[in-house]
């Protein structure tokens, strides 16, 4: 599903300089296997961008590389602000309380006051002192997001928000993300298998397959794109 020549950087310098986050020709390898082949994406300030694609396409790899967990083999990562990564599968600290979990998000610096988080997600207020491991999936997802937000990021990358969660819960959390984006101007990079959801709430999207960026464009356009519909939207939900 390649629309443009993906070997040339598809982002022009103007777009990159306006971005809060960008990669240029990122190549990531695991041993002899290439996981990302020259991936170039960018997220502008205050934008909501989706990254959709099937399992194993390289989505989590990309996020891990952006967070510094993986080291790229070549290519560049440009960061014009702080990035917070909400990992796949929630990844709370199960033995610590919700409040401690969220508070640790400020480890790198900044205010350790967790009050604003409970304004954003009031449902968590009564769970403050509970062991994070005992929460439901949706609640843990909220905790993970709050933890990431404590770092006061300019862009928050959420990996597989919908995984293992009921649709109602997912749309509730998604709504919160949109609210966050509108109120604070925090950019959101939404990495998702659930293309419908991702394309609905974002303004721009990339499609990644087998480590290549196959398609990119406005989310509304991609929603109507027949190839996208066939692969990711038709018959799945």
């Amino acid at each position: 599903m390649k629309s443009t020549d993906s070997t040339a950087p598809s982002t022009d310098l103007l777009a990159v300089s306006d971005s809060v986050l960008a990669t240029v020709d990122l190549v990531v390898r695991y041993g002899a296997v290439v996981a990302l082949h020259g991936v170039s994406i960018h997220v502008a300030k205050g934008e909501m961008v989706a990254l959709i694609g099937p399992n194993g396409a390289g989505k989590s790899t990309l996020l891990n590389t952006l967070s510094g967990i993986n080291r790229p083999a070549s290519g560049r990562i440009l960061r014009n602000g702080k990035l917070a990564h909400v990992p796949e599968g929630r990844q709370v600290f199960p033995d610590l309380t919700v409040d401690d979990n969220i508070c640790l998000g400020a480890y790198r610096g900044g205010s350790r006051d967790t009050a604003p988080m409970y304004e954003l997600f009031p449902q968590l207020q009564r769970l403050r002192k509970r062991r994070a491991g005992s929460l439901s999936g949706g609640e843990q997802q909220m905790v993970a997001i709050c933890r990431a937000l404590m770092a006061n990021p300019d862009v928050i990358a959420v990996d597989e928000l919908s995984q293992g969660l009921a649709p109602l819960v997912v749309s509730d959390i998604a709504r919160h993300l949109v609210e966050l984006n509108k109120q604070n101007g925090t950019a959101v990079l939404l990495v998702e298998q659930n293309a419908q959801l991702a394309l609905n709430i974002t303004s721009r999207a990339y499609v990644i397959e087998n480590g290549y960026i196959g398609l990119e464009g406005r989310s509304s356009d991609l929603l109507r794109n027949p190839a996208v519909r066939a692969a990711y939207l038709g018959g799945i939900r």
Partner: protein
Amino acid sequence: MTAFVEYLLTGVARGLVFALLAMGFVLIYRVTRVVNFAQGAFAIFGGLIAYSLLNAGVPHGVSEVLAILAAALIGLVFGIIAIGGDVPLLASLVITIGLSILSEAIAMLVWGTIPITFSGLAGHDFVIFGAFIQRQYLIVLIVSLVVFVALLYGFGRTYFGKAMSACASNPYAARLSGINVKKMGLIAFTLGGALGGLGGVLVTPLSPITYSGDVSLSITGFAAAIVGGLTSPGLAVVGGLVFGIAEQFVAGYWSPSNETAVALALLIVLLLWQAKRAPVGSLE
């Protein structure tokens, strides 16, 4: 009655030493998930080094502190060897086994095989309920309690302590939050070394140590840590006291040679108890 009180008090004193070792286990496990087989070796080194320093004329108090610092340094070195770089969990465990053996070899080489002891800080001894209480017991009591309170507070209440716990809880997420998991692990090993060293320094005036004493100290310390599920320092202290006291009573009323065997039997019983409490498959 006198014997009873003596056993009780000796048991408490030794129990507190076990508790210190147990704390070391818990600390290292909480942060790195490694069961540190060399924990007892820290104690032995602490005691032996203090002995050498005292013999060399270094005054009381200073010797002990230096010995504890040395043990902390040894802890750091062991930590680097065991977890530095990218070492999987199983390998780390076996490396600590190797380190405990290496410690025995070094201890034997430097200090020989004869049991070693030294007298504690000078001062009065006491008589309570007709039982003769060495001043050392009091020192053990006070020092350990101070350390325990400090640790319990440190782990439970401080931001840094919570960050340390987060490392074992979920190392990936900890890393994403900016916590340097590896550094925390090394800090844990260093503190574990200090705790072990402190235990050794406190116990050597009470009962002589040898190069091979680390094994029974490790086993008992570990058993005490298991009482706290390897993660609760508070319960580990309880465990230490239980084992310390039990050990004395068994030795006193039964037969001295059964000391080790009983500690071991207790270990097994405890583990059985722990297994019943815990739901299947939840612990990893």
